[in-house]
């Protein structure tokens, strides 16, 4: 009898494996940067290019770095979520304007609202590479010591915000 149950057993194991596979998103590649220090940079600010910003200035604060661009379509989906989050003043949001033209970026922010404490312009995408950016938008949560604690790939939605990001920020602020 057990001889005939073998194929059924193998089939069930396959079903479980494939079922788990369906719930995973192959586009979400785990970042090796989580748990490591946020790469240092010094970039001109989007609004005032004469002034620079560096992550070192954020030591002692929990903050979010959001990679965005005016040409990025899914950034539009994400944008209202960020605008709403910025109103709550729970966490400072800094923008990394990735491979964008300054005029387009500024127009985009006036059109859709500006949730960022400030944005920096990464015109040639060099800093994006340092942060392992491969699909805009991406969002990093960085702790008081300047360590990346979480990376969100793709648009941040209310669910990710409530389930993962906000609890993490509350935890890091303790």
């Amino acid at each position: 009898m057990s001889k005939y149950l073998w194929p059924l057993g193998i089939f069930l194991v396959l079903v479980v494996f494939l079922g788990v596979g369906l719930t995973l998103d192959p586009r979400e590649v785990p970042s090796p940067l989580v748990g490591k220090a946020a790469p240092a940079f010094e970039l001109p600010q989007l609004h005032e290019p004469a002034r620079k910003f560096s992550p070192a200035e954020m030591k002692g604060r929990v903050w979010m770095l959001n990679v965005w661009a005016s040409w990025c379509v899914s950034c539009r989906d994400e944008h209202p979520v960020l605008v709403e989050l910025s109103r709550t003043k729970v966490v400072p949001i800094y923008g990394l304007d990735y491979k964008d033209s300054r005029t387009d970026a500024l127009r985009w922010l006036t059109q859709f609202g500006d949730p960022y404490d400030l944005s920096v312009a990464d015109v040639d995408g060099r800093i994006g590479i340092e942060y392992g950016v491969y699909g805009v938008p991406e969002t990093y949560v960085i702790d008081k010591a300047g360590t990346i604690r979480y990376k969100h790939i793709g648009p941040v939605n209310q669910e990710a915000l409530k389930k993962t990001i906000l609890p993490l920020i509350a935890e890091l602020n303790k």
Partner: protein
Amino acid sequence: MRTLILLLVALLAGQVFAREAVPVAEDPVIEQRLIDISGELRCLVCQNESLAASHAELALDLRREIRTLIARGDNDDAIRTFLTDRYGDFILYRPQFKRTTLLLWLGPALLLLLGLGLLFRQLRRRSRESKASDPTDVELSHDERATLAKLLTEEAPPASSGKGGKS
């Protein structure tokens, strides 16, 4: 006169727009190494295309980055480390052999061994079963032996007569 001027302007315009083609490879040695390295790397945007083949914006940027690293004198391992530090092992088409990739590398060999083991067991069981039911392996009783001997001796004469009939 006017047509002549127009003609001249047209000729000049042609020269203004015709620019020399930008060289694809500044340094053929660097370009060859770039192709060798990036052929083994995954483009994270298209995932099924190598960094060498991809036309994605990110692939262009990463190729430019690798070019700078090659020009700086980094060896292949250093370049791969540069990329895995930022994008993870997923960027390598040929993942390194380490603790987390042990199952990935040894999995096929383990499956092969498992399959061979099952096959071997099955074959042994089958040979044992067939031995047990082998009719030639049965001990003959005294009477049976006598019958067999009789049959065999009876068989012989017709065979020789058959031969004689033919000749």
